């Protein structure tokens, strides 16, 4: 209906291969970016920015990271939380060691450590596939979590065992630490997420992205066509972990201000995995949709009883929220195992061929 594509023809491969070849998609993306960069900052209150938008963006980025590995390269991972933790602890150590360096730069650098760790734990993927591989990533999860607790150097031997983020400025504006305004942090998180999402989309549509999908879809055929399985998988592990690492660092630097090892526990891994699955494996846009669903739904669920004026204990609400989320996850898996991205694809296709059914 809204997709009126008549007259949109491509006279070059550049245009034909564009990320958004359809004009309406380009406009839609423009509108979303406008809302994100202009409308929300102008209208939203601190609660909305700090408790909804910032975590949503952080999780979106982490979901993109996991999606690279699981959705595009087909390697199941349950260690996302730990890889995010590596990013967080690395960034924390870096600010301690280089207090004068721009914190954004350090956050982006911290991903490299996470990438290295990710690649190491990706090594078994050469021989191990599917659920078995998931177990090896669980090894990473528990081992790294243990490291965060036991290696005091990582948290500067704080008595609390947590990392606390120092105040850092950029261009005279405080962007990290407790004094930073939600708005400033929002802009940092939004910019990093958007830029990384854009860059990774470029990788995904090119040679490297294709080689990952080859491994995912039919690893034997891929190998017989000259794809080196180990290199390709390790690269996916590294890139995925880099992105997760950056997300993990952002999580503590621009959202939580302080983090304990339990912030990066297996629960987080599952949360991100849910975002990816419900959002849609193999879709960058889906990662955003999944993150929105998993993060925002509980907030809404918790708010519902008080909105309705029903007086229920906070704990009960929490329990009910758990049940509803669990049930909704199962519901969506049954309705559309390929996630929101596929639902959106179907809807979009319907709109494109409207009023026809196909």
């Amino acid at each position: 209906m809204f997709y009126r594509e008549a007259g949109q023809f491509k006279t070059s491969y550049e245009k034909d291969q564009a990320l958004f070849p359809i004009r309406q998609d380009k406009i839609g993306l423009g509108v979303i970016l406008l809302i994100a960069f202009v409308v929300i900052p102008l209208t939203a209150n601190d609660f909305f920015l700090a408790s909804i938008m910032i975590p949503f963006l952080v999780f979106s980025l982490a979901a993109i990271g996991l999606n690279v590995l699981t959705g595009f390269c087909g390697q199941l991972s349950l260690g996302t939380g730990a890889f995010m933790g590596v990013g967080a602890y690395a960034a924390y150590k870096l600010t301690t060691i280089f207090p004068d360096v721009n914190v954004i730069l350090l956050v982006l650098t911290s991903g490299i450590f996470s990438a290295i760790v990710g690649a190491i734990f990706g090594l078994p993927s050469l021989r191990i596939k599917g659920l078995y591989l998931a177990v090896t990533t669980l090894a990473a999860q528990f081992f790294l979590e243990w490291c965060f607790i036991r290696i005091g150097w990582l948290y500067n031997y704080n008595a609390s065992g947590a990392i606390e983020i120092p105040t850092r400025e950029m261009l005279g504006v405080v962007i990290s630490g407790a004094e930073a305004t939600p708005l400033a942090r929002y802009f940092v998180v939004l910019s990093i997420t958007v830029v990384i999402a854009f860059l990774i989309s470029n990788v995904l549509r090119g040679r490297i992205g294709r080689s990952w999908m080859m491994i995912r879809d039919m690893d034997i055929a891929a190998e017989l066509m000259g794809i080196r399985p180990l290199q390709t998988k390790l690269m996916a592990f590294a890139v995925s972990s880099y992105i997760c690492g950056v997300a993990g660092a952002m999580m503590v630097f621009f959202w939580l201000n302080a983090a304990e090892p339990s912030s990066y526990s297996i629960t987080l891994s599952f949360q991100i995995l849910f975002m990816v699955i419900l959002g849609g494996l193999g879709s960058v846009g889906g990662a955003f949709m999944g993150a929105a669903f998993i993060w925002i739904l509980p907030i809404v669920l918790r708010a519902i009883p008080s909105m309705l004026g029903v007086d229920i204990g906070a704990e009960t609400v929490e329990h009910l929220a758990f049940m509803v989320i669990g049930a909704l996850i199962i519901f969506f898996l049954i309705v559309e195992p390929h996630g929101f991205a596929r639902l959106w694809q179907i809807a979009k296709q319907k709109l494109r061929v409207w009023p026809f059914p196909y």
Partner: protein
Amino acid sequence: MLYDIFVDPFVQMYQMPDFFLQVLWEGFVAGILYALIALGFVLIFKASGVFNFAQGIMVVFAGLTLVGLHENGVPAFLALILTIGVMGVLAYGIERVVMRPLVNQPDIILLMATIGLTYFLIGFGELIFGGEPKRMITEELGLPTGSTAFEFGERGLVILQHIDIAAAVIAILMVTALGIFFNKTRIGRALRAVADDHQAALSVGISLNQIWAIVWFAAGLVALATGIMWGARSDVSFALEIIAFKALPVLILGGFTSIPGAIIGGLIIGFGEKIAELYWGGLVGGGIESWFAYIIALIFLLFRPQGLFGEKIIERV
């Protein structure tokens, strides 16, 4: 350093054999319990190819139901029977609402669904029973308490908890019963047929849905047993859910479809982790129990990706 790693632990083992034996016993009991959880996984995986992440929460749920019923005045044995009934209803519900609509979906989707189920059961369980740990009704069920100490050597002492002995006995009984069930009964044979070939099973007139409901029920019973045993050792709480993760390396070692594999894998992990923790853990600050099992599994996987009892996979094109 090298001395600490390679020599000292063994010297200790030799010098304090009673302590070593005690560790072995602890490992054995832990192993048995891991094996019981793994058994729940294996039952479901064998029959439906579903990696049931909810097994851990089922343990908690079964335990809580039992204790909760008793707290509300139901006699212990009646509570036990009612709990078995609840697990049956749960199994039927899961088959109807979750598994049946998701038939033929990829592994990862089924795995996700069981994680969703976990969330649901956590919420549901906490809603009904509250989040606080509860004491298992060990005595009420007629299970032994207390402990027996054996003198060992000159001044050594090995203490065996009675409940641990009971756990071992029950686990062994359970495995035997399951073995008989699978080999001697019609339904048991049907289950094996399903595991081997869905099409073949259908062609001999067995309803897949029925079978799935039955295996989930069987897994529920195993969960109940595990819940009682584990609950008797510590308390019944949602923290128990974490032990489900321990079952994963056990499965890796034993193979996803092998019942003896689950037992042996459980024991290896149980022994290995206790010994490693007590003799080597101190060197790196302790707490290595949380990941040691995985590292064993990981190393093992690199050499034998199909597990101890799995069949070798020949790839074809």
